[in-house]
């Protein structure tokens, strides 16, 4: 445990140090250019002092982002449109909805593919092609098309999350559902088990480790999908909307604090899937073993 904390803290310290250095270089250059344009003289001390205090910095320093985070998370009420919690919760809604439907869709496609050779050859190319299309290109179209038939709000965003999150689940579950031990399959054969029995008593369990690995990828992808869906569509709320308005007005602190909230949200979601996995493994009696 001590070692874990130590390694986390040291990597964290390195990241912060690199960040401060990068902020100095980028904002410093910006300052120098400004001063030279006005034909003013400057010293290095002046630049180093000023680089961490620029009004609209190219790269805000960690403490500036920290201040913005405190301002937009703690100082404002959760209901405020300037609260990051408010925006995070909007993004979370479509993330979770998209994740649930995406995972179910992913499992369904995988079950179909595993049980039907024709489905594998007919469906798999589409599944793969779907992921080669840049989501940024397709997201506005989905929102516009659904808007035309009066579907607005969380649903279009959830669909984009679903679009990104079903894929890892499908790929992993096709492998997982086929991963059962040959010996166990023969055992089921000697019991003259039906396809239904073989699925629910054998394949489904063999696939579970694969399922959870893919759910971790899927929930992170669902979050990215939700944020991307908020970007080009002029959404009123959500972390994506915060990123967009931040870049409109050159509010880099706002962009970075929204990014940090998004990353934290993603980590929490992946961690929660990990917890669910551990609970299940314990129920399966495999935790101490695995």
């Amino acid at each position, binding site marked *: 445990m001590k070692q874990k904390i130590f390694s986390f803290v040291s990597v964290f310290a390195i990241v912060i140090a690199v960040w401060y250095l990068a902020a100095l270089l980028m904002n410093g250059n910006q300052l120098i250019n400004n001063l030279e344009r006005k034909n003013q003289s400057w010293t290095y001390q002046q630049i180093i002092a000023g680089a961490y205090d620029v009004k609209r910095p190219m790269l805000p320093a960690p403490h500036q982002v920290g201040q913005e985070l405190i301002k937009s998370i703690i100082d404002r009420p959760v209901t405020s449109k300037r609260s990051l919690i408010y925006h995070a919760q909007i993004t979370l809604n479509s993330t979770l909805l998209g994740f649930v439907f995406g995972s179910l869709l992913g499992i369904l496609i995988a079950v179909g593919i595993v049980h039907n050779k024709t489905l594998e050859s007919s469906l798999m190319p589409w599944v793969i092609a779907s992921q080669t299309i840049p989501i940024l290109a397709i997201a506005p179209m989905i929102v516009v098309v659904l808007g035309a038939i009066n579907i607005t709000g969380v649903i279009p965003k959830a669909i984009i999350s679903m679009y990104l999150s079903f894929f890892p689940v499908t790929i992993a579950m096709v492998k997982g559902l086929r991963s059962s031990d040959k*010996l*166990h399959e023969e*055992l089921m054969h*000697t*019991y003259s088990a039906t396809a239904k029995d073989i699925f629910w*008593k054998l394949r489904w369990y063999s696939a579970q480790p694969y399922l959870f690995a893919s759910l971790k990828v899927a929930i992170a992808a669902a979050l990215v999908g939700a944020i991307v869906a908020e970007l080009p569509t002029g959404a009123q709320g959500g972390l994506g909307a915060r990123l967009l308005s931040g870049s409109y007005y050159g509010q880099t602190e706002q962009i970075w604090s929204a990014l940090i909230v998004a990353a934290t949200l993603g980590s929490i979601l992946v961690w929660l899937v990990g917890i669910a996995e551990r609970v299940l493994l314990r129920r399966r*009696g495999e935790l101490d*073993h695995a």
Partner: protein
Amino acid sequence: MLATEEAAMESAPEVTEKPEKAEQTKREMIAIDDLSLIFPSKDGDVHALSNINLSIKSGDFVSFIGPSGCGKTTLLRVIADLEKATSGDLKVNGTDAQDARLNRLYGYVFQAAALLPWRNIQQNCALPMEISGLSPAQQNKQIDKYLKMVGLQDFHKKFPWQLSGGMQQRASIARALCLNPDLLLMDEPFGALDEITRDHMNIELLRIWSETQKTVVFVTHSIDEAVLLSTHIVVMSPRPGRIVKVIESPLPRLKTLALRDDPAFHALASEIRTALAHEHAID
């Protein structure tokens, strides 16, 4: 006990014949007539089994013995309908192998215990009964009875990884017994165990066999094991896989480990060894 047995039987129609079994213990359980199995492969066909003729009577304990590649496991798998014969005729309890499997006539014990790692021992034993549709109460009765028989009465809630290899294999034998099949097919079930555990398991198996009056077909490559367990020993030879000799054991049905010092034991072992060696000389 009768009640549970009758219940277990509902899924196996053959069992209606069971009351007669006492009088006709010499009913034919397995009849194999000129059976061959060829595995086609790129560098020529492999004759896994060639012109097998064999009759196994109900209540017998029959061992298949021979070197690797002699087809002893393949023959067992054909009886279990895990492989299809290329030609010839096979009857298991008067029906073909597929019907016997569909009616869950036999219990199969693999070389590895093949317990499902996410089920505890009780749930593992319940698996075949869940599939055959026994009620949970009947399942539990069977599980208690057979786990006790294999000496695992205190291990219901343990998971496979918490058990030693020998205990896992005993659990898999209990699982095979739970459906109360007339026929037990065992593919080197003790092959992976150390010799001390194996001796113990052999004696346990003999006891269970005499208690349950089942027919056992047992694959092994240990001459001692074959002599200690069997009423009949089928000596096989490879390339092509075939039966060299069927030896009927002159020893009593229920044997003890002490019998291994008996001259009759040595005589039988030597007869098997001669049959095996003779075939190798021809090779």
